């Protein structure tokens, strides 16, 4: 390839949107051409700058409003009075429960941000693997002596999600196992640590800063999957990892 060809493809190359043959061609050219190398570097630096701007997360009142729209308010004053009475009676008893649930939701949201931060750190800092292997019988023993628990390790290559490696990472200040899976050009990080409490099959699903996050527990382990993969495929992946 020559510069004008590469110039035309440089954005698609930076976005991982070229097919393998074209990507190889551009990569080879970029390795030898300082000008085109500079263009690729500029785009990577620009991406870092853009990702540094504040993320506009939905305010909680928007969240409440969206939850409320599916319950059209056809409320008569009489029903309202009745509801208020019931609510008063119930709220005395449930205040503590509501607070506990809220605290747990807040803790889950914080953890979700932490796992996304770890995912991004691993991808940007090039420290994605401590051990690079697709063999679950290599990866699982590798964790021995590095963590005080033994994470479940499964290769899902048969389902199109090959295991590519693992590392020890940190989430919320504690050491965790991180398994790395691949789907096309997308990386999936699965973070695992002993669960504080059992929350069930799929306890949390959200998207945050462009990443999909899923959380569930299995055999007294908390699992979090993070990826820029689309919903459908990540859900497929998560189902494959559930019992």
């Amino acid at each position, binding site marked *: 390839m020559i510069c004008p060809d590469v110039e035309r493809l440089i954005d698609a190359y930076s976005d991982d949107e070229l097919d393998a043959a074209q990507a190889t061609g551009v990569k080879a050219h970029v390795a030898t051409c300082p000008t085109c*190398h500079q263009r690729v570097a500029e785009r990577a630096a620009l991406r870092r700058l853009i*990702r540094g701007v504040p993320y506009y*997360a939905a305010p909680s009142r928007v969240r409440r409003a969206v939850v409320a729209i599916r319950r059209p308010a056809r409320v008569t004053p009489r029903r309202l009075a009745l509801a208020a009475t019931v609510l008063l009676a119930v709220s005395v008893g449930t205040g503590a429960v509501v607070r506990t649930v809220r605290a747990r939701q807040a803790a889950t949201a914080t953890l979700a941000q932490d796992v996304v931060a770890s995912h991004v750190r691993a991808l940007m800092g090039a420290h994605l693997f401590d051990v690079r292997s697709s063999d679950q019988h290599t990866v699982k023993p590798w964790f021995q002596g590095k963590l005080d628990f033994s994470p479940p390790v499964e290769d899902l290559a048969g389902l199109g999600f090959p295991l590519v490696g693992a590392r020890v990472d940190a989430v919320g200040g504690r050491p965790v196992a991180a398994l790395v899976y691949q789907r096309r050009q997308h990386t999936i990080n699965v973070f695992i640590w002993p669960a504080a409490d059992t929350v069930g099959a799929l306890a949390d699903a959200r998207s945050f800063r462009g990443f999909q996050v899923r959380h569930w527990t299995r055999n007294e382990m908390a699992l979090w999957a993070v990826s820029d993969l689309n919903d459908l495929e990540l859900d497929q992946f998560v189902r494959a990892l559930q019992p």
Partner: protein
Amino acid sequence: MPSRVFEEVVLPHLDAAFNYARWLTKSDADAEDVVQDAAVRALRFFSSLRNDDARAWLLTIVRNTWNARFSRVGSADEHMVLDDMKDDRPDGQLDAEALVIQRQTVERVQRAIETLPTDFREVIVLREIEGLSYKEIAAVAGIPIGTVMSRLARARERLLALLGPDLARGGIGDLS
């Protein structure tokens, strides 16, 4: 209507919906209106969601809602000259703390994105902040994939021109 399922599908993507609406409208209040209207529409069209990617589906509805509400009324400001994009720090502050520089960089990046024409701004936000693929962006913005590519290229050229000094400070050299 399986309302429980509606929540499970829409709520995980509400942040993405709001972020997109906020960048489209450049206003918190307008973004809130757009997202709430979009959620009402999403509920109405919910039965039409089959095996599509829910995030792209919701963002498409956000865009259509915004388009119906604000269609191009704000275009006057989009050709604004970028004079105010220049480095506006007084000379005395040039060696201020790294933190201050970083905050000012973030502000300049934010303003640079905001001054892009909407067509450019939305592809940048969908690609760089939300991480959508070209195919997903094409579906959300209702344009061909080739147009996604050319708009991204032109948007980046503009941002690179505006943010050259920040790129240099951001350590562009450490990429090789």
